[in-house]
């Protein structure tokens, strides 16, 4: 590997990290401001202009908090759990191209870390599933019954909804005829897959809300029943890592949803001006994030048995039906 390509990879990795870490910080502010507006409040507006320094203030506060490790905790696992939770959120964006390929000095650069990998979607599903280990480990190692119940709930929930999630992304895979993200985006040049796969997109969206443990599927951290669920014993920066994992996953699933169903970086004039690509992608991602926040501001938490019933009895059959219809139509039209 040459020095130039090393530099290229390094730069791309830094960009992916910055998107998740910086995005996490400002997503918290975005969520608080939007949710405040939805509740006819104003939200944090004191730290800096329009409250823009609020995430910095929160971060400084968390750094200075005492790091507690309970006496009953399994120390190694307790320290490992936040890392295991946050890592998938950080690396999941690697296969998402942020824009069309760029020509600089005669060399073509792809605007994704590994967007040409031919199993991109598989990578996403695989990495997304790792996060549940972190949550289960956190719940187990805390030595706290609420944490353990939060961890158990999250594992049951993620297993149930991952099936629907996996089946929902089969639609775009079938239409594009490839698991490579580049191919899937190229397949959406004529028409976004959300038009061809409205049910698939809906299922994908609901399943991801459950996957990232957001309201109304925030069973694992149900404050009223489990205090805070799996991260009840965590404080300071270790808590911040869990927080970062949750919001990082929100960003990641929004990127993935925008790429698989909303045409990724595609948009008018994107072939002529490459820099429009990232702008279009960010607009789509922010729109999806807004819907996630909107859901949280609107809906109350599901009861646990209903959550399970909804996942297994409604979402899973629907996604199977979606796959079947897509396959039949695809064969009949001759794709």
């Amino acid at each position, binding site marked *: 590997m040459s020095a130039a390509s090393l530099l290229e990879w390094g730069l791309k990795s830094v960009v992916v990290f910055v998107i998740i870490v910086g995005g996490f910080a400002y997503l918290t502010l975005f969520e608080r401001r*939007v949710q*405040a*507006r*939805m*509740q*006819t*409040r*104003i939200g944090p507006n004191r730290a800096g202009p329009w409250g823009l320094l609020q995430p910095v203030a929160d971060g400084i506060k968390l750094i200075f908090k005492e790091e507690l490790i309970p006496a009953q905790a399994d120390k190694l696992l307790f320290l490992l759990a936040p890392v295991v939770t946050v890592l998938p959120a950080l690396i999941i964006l690697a296969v998402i191209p942020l824009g069309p390929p760029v020509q600089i000095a005669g060399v073509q650069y792809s605007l994704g870390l590994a967007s040409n990998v031919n199993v991109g979607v598989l990578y996403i599903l695989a990495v997304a599933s790792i996060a549940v280990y972190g949550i289960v480990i956190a719940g187990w190692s805390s030595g706290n019954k609420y944490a353990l119940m939060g961890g158990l709930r999250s594992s049951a929930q993620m297993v149930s909804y991952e099936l629907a999630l996996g089946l929902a992304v089969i639609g775009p895979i079938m239409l594009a005829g490839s698991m490579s993200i580049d191919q899937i985006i190229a397949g959406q040049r004529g028409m976004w897959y959300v038009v061809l796969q409205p049910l698939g997109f809906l299922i994908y969206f609901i399943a991801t809300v459950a996957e990232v443990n957001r309201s109304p599927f925030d069973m694992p951290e149900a404050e009223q029943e489990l205090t805070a669920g799996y991260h009840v014993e965590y404080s300071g920066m270790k808590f911040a890592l869990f927080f970062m994992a949750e919001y990082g996953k929100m960003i990641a699933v929004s990127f993935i949803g925008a790429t698989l169903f909303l045409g990724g970086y595609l948009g008018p004039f994107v072939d002529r001006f490459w820099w429009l690509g990232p702008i279009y992608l960010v607009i789509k991602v922010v729109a999806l994030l807004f819907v996630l926040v*909107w*859901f949280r*501001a*609107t*809906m109350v938490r599901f009861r646990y048995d*209903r959550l399970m019933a*909804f996942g297994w009895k409604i979402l899973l059959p629907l996604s199977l039906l979606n796959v079947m219809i897509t396959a039949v139509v695809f064969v009949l039209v001759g794709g």
Partner: protein
Amino acid sequence: MNPLQILRGLWTVFRSMFEKPVTYQYPEVKRPVRQRFKGRHELKRYENGLEKCIGCALCAAACPADAIFVEAAENTDEMRFSPGERYASTYEINMLRCIFCGYCEDACPTEAIVLEHNYELSFTNRREAIYPKEMLLVPVPPNGKPTPQQVPSGEFNRAIPEMQNPD
């Protein structure tokens, strides 16, 4: 779990985004309190500047939290603080103890102590929580004189004002 109901709920929440926020930007904009709000106490004066408080300590007796401490001293016509025989030489309210029930207001025979509208009572140590008489006493009214006053003898012998029927 009716999808239409969910959509209706989402629409309601979305619409409320465009309503005027109900938040008051507190330090800059202060919401006016209700007329009968019970905030920090004030010790009132008569028109001529004499203090209404006569140091009877009925407020201290009525106080359920034992927040008020009163010490009385004798008035003379040369050094007159309040009408009648005595005045409060020391009057302290411990704001850490006070529960703002207003019983002191009810107990006062001269309507000297009134819970007014100031609610910004922050302090950084326990000594500052004790509000002395100088802080509680209202300023001298425009055509009054500061206490102690020198008054002609026999004019302010009655400690408690004449009771009148309310109009």
